[in-house]
């Protein structure tokens, strides 16, 4: 099986690849956004803790 055969998917390429593309985007966002948020929350809490501790 050649690469063009694989990509053409027996004539269903325009249905199959968009599905896999949307799937990849949805899954990527569901990992990337939580990771960014976790880092952001840790940074903010660290900042808050630092300012609290510098006061006392």
């Amino acid at each position, binding site marked *: 099986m050649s690469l063009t055969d694989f990509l053409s998917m*027996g004539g*269903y390429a325009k249905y199959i690849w968009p599905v896999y593309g949307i*799937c990849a985007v949805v899954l990527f966002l569901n990992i990337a956004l*939580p990771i960014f*948020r976790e880092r952001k929350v840790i940074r903010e809490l660290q900042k808050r*803790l630092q300012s609290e501790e510098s006061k006392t």
Partner: protein
Amino acid sequence: MSLYKKCHRWFHQFASPKYFYDISHIISKYAIVVCIICFIAGLYGGLILAPADYQQGDSFRIMYVHVPAAWMALFVYVVMAVAGGIGLIWHIKLAEIVARNSAPIGASFTFLALVSGAIWGKPMWGAYWVWDARLTSFLILFFLYLGYIALQSAFEDRRVAARAGAILALVGIVNIPIIHYSVEWWSTLHQGSIISQIDKPTVHMSMLIPLIFMVLAFKTFYVTSLLIRVRTEILEYESNTSWVKQLLRDYKNVTN
């Protein structure tokens, strides 16, 4: 110590934020490895090894996204409703956090199932959308998720939001058996289940095994995404406790 007492103690230990925070790092690390392996195996098997379907041609390969997404949409909803119920009855904070953070992942899976189904419907049925029982009940599931998410941001107090959300999720759980049996109860364009009988599935092994890998991949993906979200909310909620403060100092030492 009796088994009941052991379970009881384990349950409370597991529900304690600090214990859960620590163990979630270990679980998510294994889950992501299993997830990646299953995705590679499932995609290789589904897109390359499995032969084209004798009726649907290559278009059946959409199944490897559609079916796991749809199953997980239902599974996550049940987790959300049960965790919400546990939070409602026993006031376990961790259960509320799990319920709340399951919602966006479940909504994503529902969206994915609806969109992949619509794209699959076009070449097979000649239409992206038909108002039949399976599709309509699944659309209602999507609206239930959106309603739950909207409810979470409608309340200032997160505990009130969790309680209101849990009631919505528990009422909406009646939709789950309707979705499952919709293809049997009503005449529908949607095909029936292909692996309802484990001993004699109506699908060939070369098509079934990649599907099992994809289901496992989606399941471990859910675990990973959920644990990152839950961890973050535990930190926010417990930010005034000494263990979180110590943790923040330790993280600082590592990053500097």
